[in-house]
């Protein structure tokens, strides 16, 4: 395996991991797989590229605007879509699923209408010379994505372990009713989980868009990748999405390398079927001593 291929896996893996982490936070906070996470990432990436290429914004300002859009979308999804549905139907699963699917599609169509239905190139956040690593080289966007991923995971892990809100999020994720009985502010914690998840998804989309561009339909595929990375990694630890993301990226990058261009989609489908059928709880599960 060439070192450049290895770097590709790291790069794509970082993206998958961030999406999966975004899934995990909402899953802990609200017990929902938020399928609109891919579209948050898409909206951030697309808005940034659109602001830079069409309106001539400086990249950093555009990126901040893109992140803000992702965060607002996440908060609105929680407050305006998922909560009312849950309040009316008492947490039944199918209505919540339909509601997030509708949100996914709505964000996609809105982005297509506002930003246009073409492909946009991603915008490099920081510009510096590629860093040589032996025979391979890491480009500036690759380095940015890697550093951001490590930082995000470290921060979230620290936040969950050390901060008051983070510990409360874990409590809510473990047992919502118990948390409610203990008087924890479940609703506020859940809102924070959504906002944080929107921020992480937005960052992921923004930093990954340079790889293959971004268009209004990218979000669905990104959602599926993030979900699958979460399922592979499991929900047992905050680092599990990182492992799931890297493994999924290895499958996605290596299968076309060995089996031809169309193989990535088949391989991912196969991995999904295997994990769903045989190990739906993922590789890392929480062990509780009894």
């Amino acid at each position, binding site marked *: 395996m060439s070192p450049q291929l290895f770097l590709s896996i790291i790069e794509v893996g970082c993206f998958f991991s961030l999406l999966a982490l975004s899934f995990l936070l909402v899953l802990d906070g609200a017990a929902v797989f938020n399928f609109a996470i891919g579209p948050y990432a898409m909206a951030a990436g697309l808005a940034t590229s659109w602001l830079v290429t069409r309106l001539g914004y400086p990249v950093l300002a555009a990126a901040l605007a893109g992140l803000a859009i992702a965060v607002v979308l996440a908060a609105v999804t929680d407050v305006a879509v998922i909560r009312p549905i849950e309040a009316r139907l008492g947490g039944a699963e199918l209505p919540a699923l*339909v509601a997030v699917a*509708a949100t996914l599609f709505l964000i996609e169509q809105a982005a297509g209408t506002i930003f246009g239905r073409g492909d946009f190139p991603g915008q490099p956040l920081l510009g510096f010379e590629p860093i040589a690593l032996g025979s391979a080289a890491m480009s500036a966007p690759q380095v940015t994505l890697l550093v951001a991923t490590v930082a995000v995971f470290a921060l979230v892990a620290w936040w969950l372990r050390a901060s008051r809100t983070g510990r409360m999020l874990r409590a809510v994720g473990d047992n919502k009713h118990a948390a409610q009985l203990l008087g924890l502010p479940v609703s506020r914690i859940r809102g924070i989980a959504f906002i944080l998840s929107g921020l992480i998804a937005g960052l992921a989309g923004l930093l990954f868009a340079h790889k293959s561009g971004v268009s209004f339909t990218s979000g669905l595929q990104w959602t*599926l990748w993030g979900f699958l990375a979460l399922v592979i990694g499991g929900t047992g630890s905050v680092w599990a999405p990182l492992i799931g993301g890297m493994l999924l990226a290895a499958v996605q990058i290596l299968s076309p390398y060995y089996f031809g261009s169309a193989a990535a989609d088949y391989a991912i489908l196969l991995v999904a079927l295997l994990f769903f059928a045989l190990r*739906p709880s993922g590789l890392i599960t929480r062990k509780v001593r009894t």
Partner: protein
Amino acid sequence: MRKLLNRYDLSPVLTLAAGLALLAWVGDNPFNQDLFALAATYSLLALGMYIPFVLAGSLSMAYTAYLAFGGYAVALVATRTDWPMVAGYFIGAAASAVLAVVLGFATRRLSSFFLVAVTLLFAIAFEGWLTSTPEFSGGAAGIGGVPRMELFGVEMTRELFIPVLLVLVWGIGVLVDRLRKGVFGMVLRASRDVPVAVEASGVAVPTLRLVALGTGAAVASLGGSVFVTFNQAINPETFILHVVFLALFMPLLGGQSTAWGAILGALIVVQFTFNLGSVGDSGTLLFTIAVLVVLLIAPRGILGYLGILWRRLVPLESEKERTHGA
């Protein structure tokens, strides 16, 4: 009169009348004929979605693949074999049912999110596969020049096929609505709402869901088959992935309380996304917003509220006694 209205289910008569009116509107206008054929395709898709999704509470999203199965089966049978074209309808339906059951089986004990994910991944992989196998599926160009179908020795021209479509969609609509009201439908709906109780009565809920998924997939694949029969061509872009979201929204908007709601939803989709020239690309957006609003504040859908209105006008005997007694 009131007794008569309450004793018989008038929906088959009313919908057939509506269908005939639609037929009169279509006439020999080619654009209207195209719209009608598309509406028929979407109606079958929506009915196929209705059985597992609304009745059994199982959401599969591989419906674009089922449509493609039906479409490609007809195109391949017509262009590569000497078999009658109708064989393609059966092959497509059987293949779709098998696929739906396999995907459902892999996720049968998991939350619905897993079935949605795996079916979407399948639809994506299948679209890619169609493009990358030119020798089998015609690749990106697809299969064109599908000959007209012969039914009982008569060549089905566009004009002749339109009434056939009406009868087919209406007939399947009647069947699905009967299914909903019959014992099987009642068990399905009960398994959606209280799976534990149904399981305790000795019915295997996972198996029941697989049957619903398979039946729905087969019905939807007929939609693909009629589309190809009418348009005489298919390619991987004919049924793009986002159609499945529209299909999911059709029963929600039209109303889940009867199978006709799915068909009404299909008609609305065709109107919003293809016929409204002025709104253009944003038609799909408007439609999606409408669905989300329905989902949030008017969950019964259009036919649901019409039904309530109807009951106000023609109350059931039991309800009348209750109100009089009180």
